[in-house]
């Protein structure tokens, strides 16, 4: 048993604590040290990828230590094909977030870098925890640094946004705590073993019915707020607009994934019947979110708000993919989480870059930027194209797999969701046209400097992965396939819904003979 996973998880926090002893006037040292720590964490996390056996659905790099044995709480961590990618995404984006703050944050810099590092530990903890108690601790602990990042280093209306963010999230997670306790006691009463261990709990299933439904809903609400699933999304634009660039990158890149991750890790395996029963509602909200988020994005005057609303649309795709309960939908959903982290993270980075130059984010204040900042404009175009799902770039792989999975379950819903792809082109290209093309309409824009070496260094790695996933996604999907296959099998075998009736409801086995999804919203075409 190695302690690699624990090292990856806690090195950021320990590094952050070490920075406490650096005098605050040494700003350069603080920034450099923090960035080096974050890069070290990324380097440490790489062996997780190379050492991970993609053919196995088991948890790997598992560590389990006694913590509070009388309560059945243990320090149990491990990763599977889902969390592996999210851990890597987190360790990849954190250095970028720190680098984005290089000149943007001057006030309380020391506190800032420490907060970001502590936050990284919180986020990694959420993804690696295999104990519900431990998970909940990380889940809540992560809120505190994020609260400070928005509330201290944010824009004019930061306090409102920070409080809204925390209260909204707390409201959901308190119900989840109740459900965790209920699950703990029910499992204990039924089996005699009182434990918060996820692996143990997942082997057992709550009897279908009201109890399972309520527990599912409690978990689902917490996660739906985080995703955010329409209509629980209104904290997101406020939080993004007020947060500093680093905060937005982490928020969009990693924090939103915790919602979708929660559905995969907890809702589906722990409450399979309820997941199937409520699946249609979740899917309906996801599809509404896809279209709604795109429409609302179109009319935003503030680029950052536009990107924030586009997240509602993109995460709607992820949720749709998850609840297709097909291999294609799930693989697409998981890779789309990574894609969204890269593309939207990069969009926020780039919005931050022009904000640093012009101190405005209003589309109307720009125009004709290609002439002054061609390199920025070219990279911005690649990121925009990735976000609108251009084939050959990352976004397409995820979206197409999700839609193909959804099509097999319900062609009509898939068709509605696919319109989101049209609207994505509308709001992104229209924004791009107004910001980048045309003549320069504001004199202030005439002398903007193009990308600095630091900015190049931040964007190039993201663009490399954007192209990589688009051209050869197997590097990443190959690690997650077995896990997702096992997850589907688990949901199907554990749920009490008889399989046969589901197959009969549709056209039976499709002509190609691939297995039908268990999702109850199946409405195949004749």
């Amino acid at each position, binding site marked *: 048993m190695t302690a690699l996973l624990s090292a990856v998880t806690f090195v950021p926090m320990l590094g952050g604590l070490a920075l406490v002893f650096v005098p605050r006037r040494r700003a350069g040292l603080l920034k450099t040290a923090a960035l080096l720590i974050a890069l070290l964490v990324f380097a440490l996390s790489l062996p997780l990828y190379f050492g991970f056996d993609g053919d196995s659905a088991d948890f790997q790099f598992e560590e389990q230590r006694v913590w509070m044995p009388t309560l059945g709480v243990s320090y149990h961590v491990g990763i599977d094909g889902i969390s592996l990618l999210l851990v890597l995404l987190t360790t990849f984006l954190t250095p970028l977030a720190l680098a984005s703050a290089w000149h943007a944050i001057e006030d309380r810099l020391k506190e800032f870098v420490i907060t970001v590092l502590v936050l990284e530990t919180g986020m990694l903890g959420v993804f690696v925890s295999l104990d519900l108690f431990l998970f909940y601790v990380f889940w809540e602990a992560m809120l505190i640094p994020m609260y400070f990042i928005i509330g201290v280093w944010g824009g004019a209306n930061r306090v409102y946004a920070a409080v809204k963010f925390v209260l909204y999230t707390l409201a959901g997670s308190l119900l989840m705590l109740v459900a965790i306790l209920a699950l703990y006691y029910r499992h204990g009463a039924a089996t005699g073993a009182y434990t918060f261990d996820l692996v143990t709990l997942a082997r057992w299933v709550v009897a279908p019915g009201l109890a399972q439904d309520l527990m599912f809903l409690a978990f689902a609400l917490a996660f739906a707020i985080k995703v955010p699933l329409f209509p629980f999304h209104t904290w997101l634009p406020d939080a993004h607009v007020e947060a500093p660039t680093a905060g937005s990158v982490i928020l969009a890149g990693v924090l939103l994934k915790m919602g979708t991750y929660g559905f995969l890790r907890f809702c589906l395996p722990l409450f399979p019947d309820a997941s199937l029963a409520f699946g249609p509602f979740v899917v309906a909200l996801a599809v509404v979110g896809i279209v709604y988020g795109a429409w609302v994005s179109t009319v935003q005057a503030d680029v950052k708000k536009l990107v924030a609303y586009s997240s509602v649309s993109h995460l709607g795709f992820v949720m749709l993919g998850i609840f297709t309960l097909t291999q294609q939908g799930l693989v697409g959903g998981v890779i789309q989480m990574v894609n969204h982290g890269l593309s939207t993270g990069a969009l926020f980075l780039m919005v931050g870059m022009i904000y640093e130059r012009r101190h405005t984010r209003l589309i109307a204040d720009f125009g004709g930027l*290609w002439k002054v900042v061609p390199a920025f404009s070219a990279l911005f175009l690649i990121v925009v194209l990735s976000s609108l799902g251009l084939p050959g770039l990352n976004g397409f792989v995820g979206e197409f797999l999700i839609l193909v*999975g959804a099509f097999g379950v319900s062609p009509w819903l898939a068709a509605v969701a*696919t319109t989101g792809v*049209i609207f994505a*082109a509308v709001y992104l290209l229209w924004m791009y046209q107004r910001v980048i093309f045309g003549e320069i309409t504001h004199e202030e824009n005439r002398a903007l400097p193009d990308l600095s070496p630091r900015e190049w260094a931040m964007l190039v790695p993201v663009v490399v992965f954007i192209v990589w996933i688009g051209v050869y996604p*197997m590097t990443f*999907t190959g690690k997650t396939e077995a896990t997702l296959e096992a997850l589907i099998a688990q949901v199907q075998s554990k749920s009490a819904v008889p399989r046969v009736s589901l197959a009969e409801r549709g056209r039976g086995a*499709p002509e190609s003979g691939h297995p039908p999804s268990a999702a109850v919203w199946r409405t195949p075409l004749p």
Partner: protein
Amino acid sequence: MSTVWLIPALPLAGALLNIFFGKLIGRRAHWVAVPAVACAFLASCVAFARVWHGGSFTSSLFTWIVAGDFEASVIAYVDPLTGVMLLVVTGVGALIHLYSAGYMHDDAGYARYFAYLNLFVFSMVMLVLAGDFLVLYVFWEAVGLCSYLLIGFWYTRPAAAQAGKKAFIVNRVGDFGFGLGIMWLWTAVGALDYPTVFKSVATLAPPTATGIALLLFMGACGKSAQLPLHTWLPDAMEGPTPVSALIHAATMVTAGVYMVARSHALFERSGTALEVVAWVGVATAVFAATIGLVQTDIKRVLAYSTVSQLGYMFAAVGVGAYAAGIFHLVTHAFFKALLFLGAGSVIHGTGGEQDLRRMGGLSSRMVTTTITTTVGGLGLAGVPGLAGFFSKDEILAAVYHANRAMWALLLLGAFCTAFYTGRMLFLAFYSGPRMSKEAAHHVHESPPVMTLPLWILALLTVVTGVALGAPSDAGTRFARFLAGVFPIHEAPHGGSVAFMLMVLSVVVVAAGITLAWFMYMSTPVRPEAIGRPRTLVHAFLLNAWYVDRLYDAAIVRPLLALSGYLARAFDLGLIDGIVNGLGRAVVGWAAALRRVQTGYVVNYALTMLAGVVLFLAFLLSR
């Protein structure tokens, strides 16, 4: 791995070189781009030789996406049809690259231009080579991206940026259907590679085949600018003229025709789908031709003509005359590229003039351009002996045997075609000069780097028809070459009917050109009278049947208004109102409760007393 991969690899390498080292390469960008495409043409010849005697081969590069039983691989599928398309794409592509070196000579974005153009050839070659529907889709959208980039190449012009975006979005609407069609295809067949799909379509239920085919055709309507998704192509003329020649006339826009012909096994499974294809083609052919009658911008005449000619190709494949449709695709690529390049030469030689009303008399100053463009125009009009005559007659004959109404409409389209082509040629070259003295003084012939491609394309326009398209009882030479791909169409050749049809079409063409001569040559042209709508019909045609305005009023504005309403009233007002209302309710409730905590002992004593009284009363009442 096969050498066919050289064909896309060369232009891709050229594009990457000019993207990454454009600053260094600068004015020498054509030394990278032109040889890259020329070599790709040679490599295409090699591939063509391999399928010369029919047959096909595949070459697989790598497995792209795997998810459960879903699998998509980057594979090339080469058969005679692929061979023809490769030759057209790289051949015409190479000529237009060469021409561009002259046309774009002074442009600030020289390296960027060639990078995009090479990227386009790469994408188009991959589209043609693809042996898998998903890979086809990838490059289908990739050529759309190149089109977006090149239409908006002069990005400081608002109209160019607008047109680029419009092209991308309208194509996305088509691709929405195309994407759904592919999803359905996979759901029904379980595979997306051509050999498996075309083998299994025979087992599809006809309604399923109809659905899939129509969705795929929706993509074709977008890419090939057919009704109702044609609106982006005329606006695409904002791009540099060589781009219009290569992308918006010769190659990319024909991708829809290619795709339908390639998937003919699927379309044939459903009679309905083929009928829809044919009718959309016929309707578009006539519709666009009528608009071409009155346009005053030389490039817009050609753009509507392209839309119309693509309609002829769809009409052909719709009635099952695939070889005729593809043959027209090839001849059209030659003469329409020639016409666009000729128009480009005119624009180049007149210092940027595109308005037919301010041209005239160019024949004396631009001899080469006049001769070659006239050859192209006569080819388009369908003058006997030239390529367009053979390929269009082949289509008309096939349609005649399928549906008389369609045939009549296409004949009407042929009349319009002859008229607007004659009108364009007369107005530009042969009528008296109408430009200012100053402008007339500067008119000059284009450099050899531009006229050489014109000569080659003119030669091709002259010989292709006779060499490959002469009708015979066993089908044209071209159709026999493609016999392994498409069954030879059963339209009877020879005999009195065929002869009658040919005579009729010659008469129609002659009538069209003669009418144009009467209107624009026999009397002096009054430029102020040409572009002004005199009658309702004229206004209707000048505004392209008001389709753009209809879309704007019926789709764009309502959607924007709805989005604005959702963003303000619904999102901020209702949803966020509820969220903040809950917060306010908690605060309000807490504030009310706080009042109880007054700090006065008397109040607390009083409350306590009241409590005790109530408690006692409760106990006593039991």
